[in-house]
């Protein structure tokens, strides 16, 4: 299906932010710090949040930095208020972001759905921790992969980015803000607890070299303005409150003007618009890293911190002459169906390590009929510890 619709959308190829030669100094920083800096460099000027381990440093840094730049920092009474405030601020014209972890992310789900149905740009950073419930707040887990896709009730396509390093946390924060503005939706950035708290050297790019995307502003008179204009490849202009357009925003199913409707045809238009906005732009949204996949007979498919372990395992196995490669989604939603199908055609075995009881693997299963038992190997753990390179290497040797 995606091959057909790609032609219609002609998405812009967006290069990831690259460090400039005359860039700012190399800095040793945490993933959470990189997210905060990425947010500031992307032009975020509104943060509302509530303290929660292991994401709190993002709020603390922005509490320090935003007032210096004339931006707004506000600590809200809970996470529900936080997602609400960033959505309200975005409608007033802000580039807004919040940061949380599992329990807070669960509380935000209704508000995330509201931002999606009202097509209001905002970014939610979820520094994942072990769950369910309070779980182990300072231990890593990759348990929110499905929540980030399906957590809010109803059908609402998602854009979810997933870095595997501190540097990439910085880059993908900027990309998350850009995509939120471009696609007028709530973009989610998933971090692993370990990446949030791990310190790595990052070369920051020159501000001038960072690609910043801002929402399209209407240039038409008020009475022509449609808040959900269907004539712009589903990427329609967005007026801010106070600019004279006086439109209506509602979480009810609405027509192109933003007024509530119960008419099946108008409801259908809205739902299709939300769906197509993502599915027509798959090429623009999906980013993957492919490593040693050209001649691989064994592939590892994983994301985030687990991919770091997998990279070591791949290098070690390659040194032993085992043809193994890694496919890593930087965008986990929309899921990189085409790349995974290609991988499934070319390899005999796929290993899917993840810090949960099986989430990413369901997507692989969805795309394959022949690789089910022996050839689709899970490595799953949800006890607060990481999967090590050696564990992955052992499995690689076993299947080779």
């Amino acid at each position, binding site marked *: 299906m995606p091959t057909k619709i790609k032609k219609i959308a002609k998405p812009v190829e967006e290069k990831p932010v690259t460090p400039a030669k005359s860039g700012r100094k190399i800095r040793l920083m945490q993933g959470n710090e990189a997210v905060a800096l990425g947010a500031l460099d992307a032009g975020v000027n509104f943060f509302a949040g509530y303290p929660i381990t292991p994401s709190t440093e993002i709020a603390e840094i922005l509490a320090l930095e935003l007032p210096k730049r*004339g931006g707004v920092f506000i600590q809200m009474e809970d996470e529900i208020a936080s997602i609400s405030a960033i959505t309200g601020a975005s409608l*007033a014209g802000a580039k807004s972001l919040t940061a949380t972890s599992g329990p807070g992310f669960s509380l935000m789900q209704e508000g995330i759905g509201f931002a999606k149905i009202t097509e209001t740009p905002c970014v939610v950073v979820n520094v994942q921790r072990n769950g369910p419930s309070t779980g182990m707040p300072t231990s890593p887990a990759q348990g929110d992969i499905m929540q980030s896709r399906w957590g809010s009730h109803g059908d609402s396509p998602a854009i979810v980015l997933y870095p595997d390093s501190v540097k990439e946390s910085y880059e993908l924060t900027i990309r998350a803000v850009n995509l939120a503005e471009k696609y007028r939706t709530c973009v989610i950035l998933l971090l692993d607890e370990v990446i949030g708290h791990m310190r790595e050297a990052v070369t920051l790019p020159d501000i001038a070299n960072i690609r910043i995307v801002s929402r399209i502003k209407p240039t038409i008179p008020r009475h022509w303005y449609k808040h959900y204009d269907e004539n712009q490849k589903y990427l329609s202009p967005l007026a801010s409150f*106070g600019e004279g357009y006086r439109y209506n925003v509602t979480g009810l199913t609405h027509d192109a003007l933003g007024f509530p409707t119960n008419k099946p045809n108008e409801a259908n238009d809205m739902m299709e618009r939300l769906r197509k906005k993502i599915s027509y732009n798959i090429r623009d949204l999906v980013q993957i890293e492919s490593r040693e996949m050209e001649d691989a007979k064994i592939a590892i498919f994983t994301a985030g911190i687990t991919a770091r372990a997998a990279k070591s395992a791949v290098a070690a196995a390659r040194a032993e002459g085992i043809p193994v490669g890694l496919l890593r989604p930087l965008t986990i939603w929309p899921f990189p169906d085409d790349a995974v199908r290609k991988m499934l055609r070319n390899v005999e075995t796929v290993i899917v390590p993840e810090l949960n009881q099986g989430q990413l693997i369901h997507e692989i299963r969805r795309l394959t009929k022949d690789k089910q038992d022996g050839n689709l190997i899970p490595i799953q753990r949800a006890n607060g510890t990481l999967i090590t390179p050696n564990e992955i290497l052992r499995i690689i040797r076993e299947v080779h």
Partner: protein
Amino acid sequence: MANIPQKIIHEYLRHDKKFPHVWCAGCSNGIVLGSIIRAIADMQLNRDDIVMVSGIGCSSRMPVYVDFNTLHTLHGRAIAYATGVKMFKPNLKVIVITGDGDCTAIGGNHLIHAARRNIDITVILINNNIYGMTGGQASPTTPHEAIATTAPYGNIEPDFDICNLAMGAGASFVARTTAFHAIETQNYVKEAINHNGFSMLEIVSSCPVIYGRLNKKGSPADMLKHMRDNSITLAAKEKLPKEKTEGKIIRGILKRDERTEFTDAYAQLVKKVMGGKHE
């Protein structure tokens, strides 16, 4: 063409596709809407500068009908969305339309914290003592022993005094009136909007179709007369002996004080940390 007299509503209502409204015949939401529109017309506020935010419930359907920037949000969350709007653009006049269930049950946390911050948001709470939209369940202001579909044997819970709640949480302007007192409502709306700080205006209203039927309160007109006959002004209350004021709805501006408004405080903070660099 016929000579149609220009009315205020022609200017302030969204006429295309938004009517008929969702409210039942006899509902007092329309009276309150009229008072709000007249107040805003009197104040000659620019419609572009008004953001009307609401949550979920009968009263929260109001914004869709009026020609302002309108934001119909999630159940209980209107004040939190309004906080985001106001913090980013403090020059906008942010008015929250809400109900007793929306604001004091599911939204109670946002109410008390916005009041504590004293952010310049005008909350107009239309209190009909019931969840009307979902068909008559007990709310935090359903009176003790009143009947609701989820209190079929009579409500055993005590009710909130919304104005006391707002005052206790730190709201700097608190007033109460009833839907019967349309002119008073209009005046209090103006006072509340003009107040620089968090303002709570509770408007006691009626839900004849659901609350009224369940509790045998008579016709819509009977319920409005009840507001007239069972409310007294704050000034009258202070003169009368306690036994004569018990059970009465107390109308009036119950609190008005000047303390630092939150977006002003934030602007001061920005000025301080930017060392005068920010204009």
